[in-house]
C-alpha cells in the first residue's frame, strides 16, 4: 500500500458541483482525506452529503469539479478503483427475496472474491442471522448486512453514508471497533452523519456542509477552539471589566457582583493570566458541545 507513505491524500475532492435544477444539489465541495484517517462528513439532512458520496462512487455524474481517490479519477468509470472501495448507501435496499447469505455471496461473486469466512465472521460479530430472507429482517439487521458488504473485502477506502442509522448501541460499539481495525490497517474512512456527537469520538477531522455548500473542514480540536464558549470567573472583590473586554477573542462580558461571565472564542490563556493577576477564586468553563458548534457554524453560513 504505497499510498500510505505518499504525500497525496487518499481522497481529494476539488470544487465538486452537481446541480439538479433549482435548489437541490451541491456546489464547490472541496476537502481532502489522508490515508489512514477517519473523516467525518457532517451536515443536516438534505445538505448534500449523499449526493457527494454518490458522486464519489460514480453513481451520479458530477456537473463540474474533480474527485481523486487512491490516485484514480473517481468521476471516470473505474472498476479497479471500485474494487478497493467499500460503500454503504444512505438509503440501503437489499434484494428482499434473498437471504443474507445469498445477498452477501452475490456481492462477493460480483467482486470476484470468495469471502464466506469473512462474511461468517462479521455476521457473528454483529449478531445477525444470515439464513433469514431480507424482507423478514428488521431495519437494524438489514443495516448490519449493509455494513458487512462494505467491510467484507477489506477495502482501502470506506465510504459510509449514515452507517449507524438503525443500529442498537451494542452493535454500534462493535461497529466502532471494526472502524478502529480498519484504520489501524491503514485504510481510509469517510463517515457521514447528521449528528456530530455520533462521529466526534470516531473522526480525526470533519467537514461540515449545509445546503450543498462547504461550511468548514477542520480538525475537531480546532473546531472546539474556534467555538464560542462561556467562562465564569469568581473573585473576592469587584474587578474592572474594561481590560477583560480588550482581550482578543472575548466577545461579551457581563458582571454580577464579584462574578464575571465572559463569552469568548479561541484560547483562554490571556484571560486566565489576567484573572490570576486579579486574584481569581474559581474558574468555570462551559465546554460547548460540538453539536452547538455545528449548529452555530451552519447558522453563521446561512443566515435565515
Amino acid at each position, binding site marked *: 500500500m504505497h499510498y500510505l507513505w505518499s504525500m497525496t491524500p487518499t481522497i481529494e475532492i476539488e470544487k465538486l458541483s452537481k446541480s439538479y435544477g433549482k435548489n437541490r444539489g451541491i456546489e464547490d465541495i472541496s476537502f481532502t482525506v489522508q490515508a489512514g484517517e477517519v473523516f467525518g462528513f457532517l451536515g443536516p439532512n438534505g445538505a448534500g452529503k449523499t449526493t457527494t458520496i454518490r458522486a464519489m462512487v460514480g453513481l451520479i455524474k458530477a456537473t463540474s469539479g474533480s474527485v481523486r481517490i487512491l490516485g484514480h479519477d473517481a468521476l471516470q*468509470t473505474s472498476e479497479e478503483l471500485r*474494487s478497493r472501495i467499500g460503500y454503504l448507501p444512505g438509503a440501503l435496499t437489499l434484494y428482499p427475496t434473498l437471504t443474507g447469505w445469498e445477498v452477501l455471496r452475490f456481492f462477493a461473486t*460480483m467482486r470476484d472474491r470468495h469471502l464466506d469466512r469473512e462474511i461468517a465472521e462479521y455476521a457473528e460479530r454483529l449478531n445477525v442471522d444470515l439464513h433469514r430472507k431480507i424482507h423478514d429482517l428488521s431495519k437494524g439487521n438489514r443495516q448490519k448486512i449493509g455494513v458487512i458488504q462494505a467491510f467484507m473485502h477489506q477495502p482501502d477506502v470506506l465510504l459510509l453514508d449514515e452507517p449507524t442509522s438503525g443500529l442498537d448501541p451494542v452493535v454500534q460499539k462493535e461497529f466502532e471497533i471494526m472502524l478502529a481495525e480498519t484504520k489501524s490497517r491503514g485504510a481510509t474512512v469517510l463517515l457521514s452523519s447528521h449528528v456530530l456527537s455520533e462521529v466526534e469520538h470516531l473522526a480525526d477531522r470533519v467537514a461540515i456542509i449545509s445546503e450543498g455548500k462547504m461550511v468548514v473542514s477542520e480538525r475537531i480540536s480546532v473546531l472546539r477552539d474556534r467555538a464560542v464558549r462561556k467562562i465564569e470567573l469568581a473573585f473576592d472583590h469587584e474587578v474592572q471589566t474594561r481590560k477583560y473586554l480588550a482581550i482578543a477573542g472575548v466577545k461579551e462580558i457581563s458582571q454580577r457582583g464579584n462574578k464575571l461571565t465572559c463569552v469568548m472564542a479561541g484560547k483562554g490563556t490571556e484571560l486566565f493570566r489576567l484573572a490570576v493577576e486579579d486574584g481569581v477564586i474559581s474558574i468555570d468553563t462551559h465546554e460547548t458541545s460540538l453539536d452547538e458548534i455545528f449548529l452555530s457554524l451552519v447558522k453563521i453560513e446561512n443566515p435565515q
Partner: protein
Amino acid sequence: MMLTIFKKNWRDHWKTFSGWTLGIVLMSTIELSVYPTLLKSGNGINDFMKNFPDSVQKIFHMQDYTSGPGFISTELFSLVLPMVIIAIGSSWGSSAVAGEEEAGTADLLFSLPVSRQNILLGKMFSIISALLAVGIVTYLTITVGSSFVNLQISRTFLASATVLIVLLGFFFSGVGLLIGAVVGKKALAVGITSGLALLMSIIYSLAPLVNSLDVLNKGNPFQWALGGRILFEGSPWQNFFKLFLVSTALYAASIFVTNNKDIRTQ
C-alpha cells in the same frame, strides 16, 4: 460476473416465466386437441369464417382455417403467442435497469467493480435466453402435438414463424429496456411499452383497410413478424434481419443511456 448477473436475473423472473411458459404449453395443447373435432365439422367452419370481413380474415389468417397451418396461424400465431412473448420481453426489459432503480438496489449494484455495460449485458443475455427458451418450448409443443393430430405443417415454416415472434419479443424487450433506462420507473416503462405494442398492433390490423396506414405499416415490427402467410410460405429474410437490427440497436441505445445516466435512488 456477467454470469452471476445472468443467473440472478433468471432467479428474479423464474416464477413468472414458468407461469407464462406453462400457459403457452397448455394453450397450444388445448388448441391442437380440438383440431380433429374441427376437421370433422368440415366445410361448415370454413363457411362460417368467410362471413368475417376480409380484413379480419387476413389478420387472423382465416382463409384456410381448416388446414393445419391456417388453424395454427389463426389460433396461436396471430395473437396469443405474440402477446405472451411481448409480455415476457417487455417485463424483463423494463425491469433490467428501472426495476433496480425503483427498488433502490441499483445503488449497491452499480457501485460494484463491474462496469454498467457488463451488468447490462448479463441481464440482456438472460432476456435473450428467456425468449429463446419460450421459442423452443413453443416449437417443440406444436411439433410434438401436430404429430398426434396430423396438422401437416412444415417444420421449416413453423420454425420461421416461431423465430419471428421471438424476434418480436426481442424488439419489445429492447423498447422496455430503453424506456426503463430513461424513465427509471418499471411500471411506467411497462405501461409505455405495452401502449406502444397496442398502437403498433392496431396499425398492423387496420393497414389492410386504410391506405395511409398501409404505408406506415411497412415500418411496423408487427408486420415484419406476423405479416404474410408465414406458416404456408415462410417469410422473406429481410423481415428477420430488420427485426434483429432494430432490436439490437435498441439494446445498444440502452447501454449508452445507462452508461451516461445518474443512477436514481429511493
